[in-house]
């Protein structure tokens, strides 16, 4: 992904565009479903709550976590993984009560609650005997 930052110099002139290249990775997710909700767990190491963007539109859930560059100008002696942003989207077939969606982030793990809307909850149908 390419991020373009424009820096303004003090005279008001555009000092020049600085391009930073940072890879984007697909984070791993677990999805648990109960009668009440969909519960998502995602591994987003290095993402702070301020840098996490979660959207739910048109039955599509999009999660984007921005990771601040930690190793600018550093040469690794061993480099076994790359650092970059996290991005993932899911198509959610269930009817979700978007008002009650809640998210928490602990130690790089996102826990996202997607409560099912009332009409989507399974109902037990009582069968009347004759």
């Amino acid at each position, binding site marked *: 992904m390419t991020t373009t930052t424009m820096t303004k110099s003090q005279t008001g002139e555009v000092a020049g565009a600085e391009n930073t290249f940072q*890879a984007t*990775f*697909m984070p*791993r*997710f*677990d*999805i*648990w*479903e*109960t*009668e009440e909700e*969909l*519960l998502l*767990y*995602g*591994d*987003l*190491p*290095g*993402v*702070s709550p301020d840098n996490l963007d979660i959207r739910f539109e048109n039955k599509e859930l999009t999660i984007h976590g921005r990771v601040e560059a*930690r*190793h600018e100008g*550093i*040469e*690794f*002696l*061993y*480099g*076994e*993984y*790359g*650092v970059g942003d996290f991005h993932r989207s899911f198509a959610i077939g269930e009817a979700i009560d978007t008002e009650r969606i809640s998210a928490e*982030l*602990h*130690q*790089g*793990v996102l826990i996202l609650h997607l409560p099912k809307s009332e009409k989507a909850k399974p109902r037990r149908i009582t069968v009347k005997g004759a």
Partner: protein
Amino acid sequence: MFATRWEPLAEMNRLRNEMDRLFGRWGRMEPRPLASTGYPPLNLWEDDEHLYVEAELPGFDLEGLEIYVTGGRQLSLRGERRSPELKGGTWHRQERAFGSFSRTLELPSSVDSDQVSAEFRHGVLTVTLPKSEEVKPRRIEVKADSA
């Protein structure tokens, strides 16, 4: 130890990372396959005074991690991540790994074991290992004869 469901896209992504590691992003680095199968993957870099080792360990906590330095040349990391105990539902997707890991790394220079510190932020562990005195680079003063 770790069991994760096979996911083609994640696998491709990992392969891409691996290719990047070998040919692209870390092009200037020796493509050493340093235990690339080990968990967790580690990044290691240095400055004049320290070595730094970083690992992504989401869902772990600093209390549950064991960090040892042996003989000033070997770093060991151990930890465990438990899966949440959930009842009355079904899994649709399980990609995250759980269980315990243990990894030992030979350090490229000797360090002062007593001064090692670790920081854990947003699931990223950074271990700072001060180099032992004898391996620190030294500036050599050049004395000029005063004429």
